[in-house]
């Protein structure tokens, strides 16, 4: 069938509709496209759904964010959350409560203004500056006093402090470094705790040796250690001789002392290194040293190889220390082992103890060598944490080939890394970094490699769309969706993989209610999808792909992008997709989208669909299984109904009785058992399990009665004693578990009497 036949009437209708033909020509990008439309200038138009966010500065959202010191679990908290928390915990219904809220909101707005200028200042400093500004605006002295009290009390209630950061080009790196530094000091602290403990125990070994030494027990040494208080009352010469004669004089061997000392030195060096790296304690004044961030994967790998050697030395010392502390170091066995100790002796867990290394890469600056190294890292076990930043999407498209898709190296990197299985992977945009700070921390705590692929927007901000909004729209439009792959959560995809932080994850595109006034001033409302093409509209590289059409050229066959993309190819015939946009004066415009971009949007949707499946949303395997199960259940139900009907008519079949052999078997067994019992009854025995270890029998005759390995008695050798001993032991056993049996020696005196007495225990 040819097209003519297939589309028949539709084609004929289009051919007759001149206006529609013109629009279609524009959409198809035909050279003979009419000039009714104009290429929109991105600087004065934006997707209509953006109109709500025009005044971003006045809205409360996740930026600026406070990078809190010291607490990895709260490493980045939006300023709005901090203020919100202060307001929630104050009682706004109390007198003055409302004023308190207003003062805080005013302060928040002032802080934001300063933060937006990109000054890297701490919350406490900015707070004070902003508070002064607020106070300057107070109408009178009384109002100023109240405001001062409000702001002061709020400031006192804030927990923690840290640098304030806005959604600027540095934010990803800044947060990465901050989280890295927290993790580094957290791990350092834990390691130091272990080291401190071992150091204290090794010191105790040396100290107790010293206390026993001749030097420490001279009269003078004792006098000095006791002080003047006892000067008259104690004769230190005598005390010294008593101590020297009564103490076990077992000094450490020279080799052991040497070993303990050398290990102690190694551990102390390591502890000092960690101390200098992570700062001491949680003192708010002392800020820990910042982490080193590499800018090349090749260099990071190189550095890690060096660290392994250090690790070997450290673990050698740690293992020896542990053995020494537990008093299990055996020179005969361990000397040679530690002599030959090398990388091969490290356990996988030990290798994972390598301190993490941090790498920051820009996709633009990624050469072939680094790409290879990155893949090597991501498929290894090494704790290298890589932040890859994307600044343009689609990245690296060959513009000559036209805008075909989103499959650039950068955009696909995270999905590829998931397939490698070993790496922790987080893909997100700068906009929702504050919400995902916990995931970044999880990635850094993960014992293997981690990749954080973050889209943070071009260096130059769009004149109408602030960076935050731009990044948020990359996420919203499914161009750069967010997902996490955490191998630490389990082996299965359902445990490891989550698409999180994406708006309306069930939908193909997020849908929004959009209200506007039409030309006649009537209130209208529409469901509008936010698609990949809303995002691309802001990118000057694609300006040629959008054409604004004046309202007098609109046609009923124009369909909104969301609707158009939901149609199958077949049903798009004769339809013209358009995007709602608004200009600087809030006037709505329809912008026709060229055909090439539609393909790009479909590709983008395809990739999103794939993520949905991985994340368990309408998973095709599951759906198929579900369908099969449904069918099975239905057929079982039918079958049961059928058989119920037949059962009513027939009797249930009776089970035929199997010949029962169990009875005869039991009889044979019992006979054999009885025989064995009589034979055994002649022999003396003890119910060992019930022995209370009271020593009575074993003290009577240690050859006849003995303890087993858990100190319970048994007859060791019946011929090693007399029948009389057996009988007397039986009579004295507190729990009556000794059975004397029959005498081995028939010539033993008074056997008759003994046999009679024994019968009570046999």
């Amino acid at each position: 069938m040819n097209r003519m036949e297939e589309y028949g009437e539709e084609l004929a209708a289009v051919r007759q509709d001149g206006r529609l033909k013109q629009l279609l020509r524009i959409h198809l990008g035909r050279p003979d496209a009419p000039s009714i439309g104009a290429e929109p200038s991105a600087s004065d138009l934006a997707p209509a759904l953006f109109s709500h966010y025009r005044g971003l500065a006045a809205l409360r959202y996740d930026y600026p964010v406070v990078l809190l010191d010291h607490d990895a679990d709260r490493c980045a908290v939006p300023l709005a959350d901090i203020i919100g928390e202060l307001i929630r915990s104050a009682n706004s219904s109390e007198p003055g409560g409302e004023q308190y809220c207003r003062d805080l909101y005013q302060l928040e707005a002032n802080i934001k203004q300063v933060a937006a200028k990109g000054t890297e200042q701490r919350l406490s400093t900015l707070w004070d500056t902003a508070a002064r500004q607020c106070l300057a605006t107070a109408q009178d002295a009384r109002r100023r006093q109240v405001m001062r009290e409000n702001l002061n009390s709020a400031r006192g209630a804030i927990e923690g402090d840290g640098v304030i950061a806005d959604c600027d080009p540095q934010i990803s790196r800044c947060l990465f470094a901050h989280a890295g530094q927290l993790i580094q000091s957290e791990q350092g602290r834990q390691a130091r705790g272990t080291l401190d403990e071992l150091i204290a125990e090794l010191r105790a070994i040396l100290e107790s040796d010293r206390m026993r030494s001749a030097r420490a027990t001279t009269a003078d040494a004792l006098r000095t250690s006791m002080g003047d208080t006892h000067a008259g009352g104690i004769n230190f010469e005598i005390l010294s001789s008593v101590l020297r004669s009564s103490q076990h004089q077992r000094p450490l061997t020279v080799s052991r002392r040497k070993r303990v000392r050398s290990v102690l030195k190694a551990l102390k060096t390591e502890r000092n290194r960690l101390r200098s790296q992570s700062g001491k304690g949680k003192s708010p004044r002392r800020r820990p040293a910042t982490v080193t961030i590499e800018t090349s994967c090749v260099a990071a790998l190189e550095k890690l190889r060096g660290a392994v050697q250090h690790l070997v030395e450290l673990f050698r010392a740690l293992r020896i220390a542990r053995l020494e502390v537990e008093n299990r170091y055996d020179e005969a066995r361990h000397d040679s082992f530690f002599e030959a100790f090398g990388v091969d002796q490290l356990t996988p867990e030990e290798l994972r103890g390598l301190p993490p290394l941090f790498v920051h890469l820009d996709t633009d600056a990624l050469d072939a060598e680094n790409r290879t190294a990155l893949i090597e890292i991501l498929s290894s076990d090494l704790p290298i944490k890589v932040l890859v930043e994307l600044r343009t999407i689609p990245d690296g498209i060959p513009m000559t080939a036209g805008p075909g898709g989103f499959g650039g190296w950068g955009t696909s990197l995270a999905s590829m890394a998931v397939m490698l299985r070993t790496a922790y992977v987080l893909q997100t945009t700068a906009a929702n970094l504050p919400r995902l700070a916990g995931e970044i921390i999880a990635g850094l705590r993960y014992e293997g490699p981690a990749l954080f692929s973050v889209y943070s927007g071009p260096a130059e901000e769009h004149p109408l769309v602030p960076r935050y909004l731009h990044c948020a729209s990359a996420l919203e439009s499914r161009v750069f969706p967010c997902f996490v792959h955490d191998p630490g959560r389990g082996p299965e995809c359902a445990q490891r993989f989550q698409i999180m932080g994406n708006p309306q994850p069930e939908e193909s595109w997020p849908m929004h209610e959009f209200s506007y006034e039409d030309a006649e001033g009537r209130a209208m409302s529409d469901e509008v999808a936010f698609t990949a093409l809303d995002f691309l509209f802001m990118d000057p590289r694609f300006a040629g792909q959008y054409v604004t059409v004046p309202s007098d050229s609109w046609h009923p066959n124009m369909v909104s992008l969301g609707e158009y993309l939901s149609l199958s190819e077949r049903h798009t015939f004769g339809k013209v997709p358009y995007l709602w946009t608004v200009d600087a004066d809030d006037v709505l415009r329809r912008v026709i989208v060229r055909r090439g971009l539609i393909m790009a949007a479909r590709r983008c949707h395809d990739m999103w669909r794939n993520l949905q499946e991985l994340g368990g949303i309408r998973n095709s395997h599951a759906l198929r299984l579900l369908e099969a199960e449904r069918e099975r259940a239905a057929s079982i139900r039918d079958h049961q109904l059928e058989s119920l009907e037949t059962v009513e008519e027939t009797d249930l079949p009776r089970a035929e009785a199997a010949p029962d052999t169990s009875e005869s078997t039991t009889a044979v067994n019992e006979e054999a058992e009885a025989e064995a019992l009589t034979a055994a009854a002649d022999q003396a025995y003890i119910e060992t399990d019930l022995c209370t270890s009271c020593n009575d029998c074993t003290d009577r005759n240690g050859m006849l009665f003995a303890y087993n390995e858990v100190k319970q008695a048994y007859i060791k050798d019946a011929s090693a004693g007399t029948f009389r001993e057996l009988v007397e032991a039986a009579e004295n056993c507190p729990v009556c578990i000794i059975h004397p049996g029959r005498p081995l020696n028939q010539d033993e005196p008074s056997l008759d009497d003994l046999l009679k007495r024994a019968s009570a225990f046999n």
Partner: protein
Amino acid sequence: MFNPIETLIRSVTDIDADPYSLGDFLGVDSRWCQRCGNNAILTAVQKLCAEEQLAPEKTVFVSGIGCSSRLPHYMGTYGFHALHGRALPVAEGIKIRRPDLHVFVTTGDGDCCSIGAGHWLHAIRYNMNITVLLHDNQIYGLTKNQVSPTSPRGLVSNTSPHGASLDPLNPLAATLGMSNISFVAQAVDWVPSVLYDVIEQAFHHRGLSFVCIMQRCPNYLPDHFEEYIKNPDRLVLLTHARGLQVEESIARRFKHREEHDPADLDRARELSMPRDRIPLGILYRNPEVLCYEDVRSGVEHLSVAERMAALEREFDKFTVDAASPQG
């Protein structure tokens, strides 16, 4: 949370180290009388140490004064033979400073329920992770046949020639009446497998586990426990999926058995009250009770200089500034 170095050191490869055997836990030879029930308890704890592979240098037995309190001497571990009645506070001191040690307390009915009664109640309430074994022979053995708080009424002894005039104190019921109890059990020295199982569970419980053990003193009370030994019907064995699970060969000896859920405090209290039959097994267990050492850990590895500096800082808070008006 992943602590790299800690996990690593635990995995130290020392494959060919010999495991501990019961022999590693023998101390000096016991001086208890022949047939004394203390011997059974000693064997049970030695066996436990070997089975659990407790490092002898990481294990400490603390006692007060009495025959029973001599047990630490007979162990190949560390020990502390403290003052009469003071085993528990000493053990608590050890535990708070060295939570890494396995701390056991062996104490007599005189040591625990008479002179040490105050410490007993508070130790229960503090619920530190310690295993307490009360050797209840219902007599002061070491001081040669003197009446004890748990002696039955009418018992004739050197200090009660006309027979004990008071009803005995019931250690089980008293303990079950305290607050913060977390593990209460009873055993008898002459059924070694049950004794062992009870002590084993007590050891694994995190918190203070109080095990009351009826212990024979054949020297001064030769026939005292005979009725229970000869007639197991006087005992009732408590079993439960969450309590003791006893092999059928042992269980068969007990005519009376009861499925008792150790979470059921009310029933535990009923069972502990004087009746014809005494309960054997785990009466009560609650792993949720907070351990004192977890809330108030005393361990910090500071150098002397660091310790001094910390003290100075604390003292400075109380410095009275002569110039200030409040001063």
